[in-house]
């Protein structure tokens, strides 16, 4: 359930579901997201331009020439959300090469976490992750939760250019940079797999909220010869 509703500037509503990150709270965010998406499609509410679900927040952007904060807030408060029972979540396996030329931040991680590279890899590859959300750049999945011994803050100053395919970690989360972009996560490797397909208008992202993801390590040779 939404715990608090406030304004994010004058053209967005900030719905706060709590401060914890877990699958139950995230499921509630996703239920609101699906429910409101349907109401927009059925033209039951006007002026909403975007919905952005995340771990425990839902941001609703709107067109200030059509509606305003108060109207959208009242609309959200009046909703009754049913638990979304249909489950078409998938299990996805993603290859990663962790050679030093792809794992850009091992030196930083080894220093900050005080464990060696092999141990970082063992803990990273030894778990299946849950997809909480996609975003930042097209199709980037936000996965969790990492083993407690490999949790590290973001870079102090974000990189201007993360290489496409970079696989990153920060706090209890893992992600994949689907395009070259600025970014602040600690990079441990790179995947040759296509994670976002802009030609697929129905489901462009390989990984979607609710999916389970596991990673497996590949050699540089496998990486360079990767063919989908």
């Amino acid at each position, binding site marked *: 359930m939404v715990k608090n509703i*406030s*304004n*994010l*500037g*004058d*053209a*967005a509503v*900030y719905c706060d579901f709590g*401060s914890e*990150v877990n699958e139950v709270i995230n499921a509630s965010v996703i239920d609101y*997201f699906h429910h409101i998406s349907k109401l*927009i499609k059925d033209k039951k509410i006007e002026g909403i*331009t*975007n*919905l*952005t*679900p*995340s*771990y*425990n*927040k*839902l*941001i609703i*952007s709107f067109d*200030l*020439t059509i509606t*305003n*904060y108060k109207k959208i807030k009242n609309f959200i408060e009046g909703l009754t959300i049913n638990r979304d029972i249909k489950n078409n979540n998938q299990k996805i396996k993603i290859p990663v090469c962790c050679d030093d030329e792809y794992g850009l931040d091992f030196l930083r991680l080894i220093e900050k976490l005080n464990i060696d590279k092999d141990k970082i890899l063992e803990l990273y590859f030894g778990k299946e992750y849950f997809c909480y*959300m*996609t*975003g*930042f*750049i*097209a*199709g*980037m999945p*936000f996965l969790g939760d990492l083993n407690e011994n490999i949790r590290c*803050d*973001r870079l*102090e*100053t*974000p990189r*201007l250019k993360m290489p496409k395919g970079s696989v990153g970690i*920060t*706090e209890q*989360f893992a992600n994949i940079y*689907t*395009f070259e*972009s*600025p970014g*602040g996560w600690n990079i441990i490797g790179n995947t040759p797999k296509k994670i*976002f397909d*802009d030609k697929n*208008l129905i489901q*462009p*992202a390989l990984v979607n909220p609710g999916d389970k993801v596991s990673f497996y390590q590949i050699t540089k040779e496998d990486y360079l010869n990767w063919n989908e």
Partner: protein
Amino acid sequence: MNKAYFEILRAGVNTTIQDKGRNHLYHVGIAVSGAIDQRNYTLSNKLVENQLIEPVVEFAYQGPLLKLKNGKINFAISGDILFKIIRKNLEVEEGECYKSYILDEEDQIDIISTKNSTYGYLAVNGGFDLEKSWGSYSINTKANIGPNDGKKYSLDDKIFIKKIDIKSPINKKINFDYSTDNIIRIIKGTNFDYFSKDAIDKLFNEDFLITNLADRMGIRLKGPKLENIKNTNIKSEGLVRGVIQVPADGNPIIMLSDHGTVGGYPKIGVVIAADLDLVGQLTPGTKINFKEVSLEEAQNIFKAYTEDTNKYLNECN
């Protein structure tokens, strides 16, 4: 009959197609894109009697050099722009913004540079002959979506035009007032209380400099370090245009149209909708100041801003 098009003889720094933008895709990570300066985008269309939502060419700093092939068109340029029209017989005319011109086959438009702003807009009567992707014509170079395979234009590319052989010139003009005080009005962000009292004092009383790390995604500022007393990371959550994030180094970043759809740095404030066009146009080296306004004030300012845009549009009739 052959289609009319612009041949690109010089691409310019960042020449793309833009329109109102692309909605309902934040949840997969696709930003709104669209013209950075929505008011000037709208005015450029009005000047050539287009529907106000036609796609136009957006350029930044140095613009393109374009040669018209197979046709005769009306065009107009909006913004604070230095440009010339080079006629087929090599006669050169100084271009005036906010005014419609006729362009003949083999004539060229040389968009030399923006002046005290970053972006400008070129509209042609009848619009460009392009395909929509995901509900918009905007080029998103970060996700490679939109016309020209989602990439900015390069030398020798062609931009096709729908209508050719205009019979009579459109005579339109707008007297646009470009003066600005560089005061950016903001509403407190959702992490306003993460910052020290000293940081808040500095935010509203000291100058911030637009650095050269500025593009369609966002603008990095340099000023007094804004001290975070709570946590320099938050759990990643949605962003919107105008959000001011402050990473651990204490320097604010303002999100623009191609911004990442989620972010994990605390939000100290959000630029009000009415000031987004102005913010996008700020050039590196400019000093700005922030001023706090309430939600209600912001809504009134937006109303006034929209009325002001409508005044320009009506003037153009």
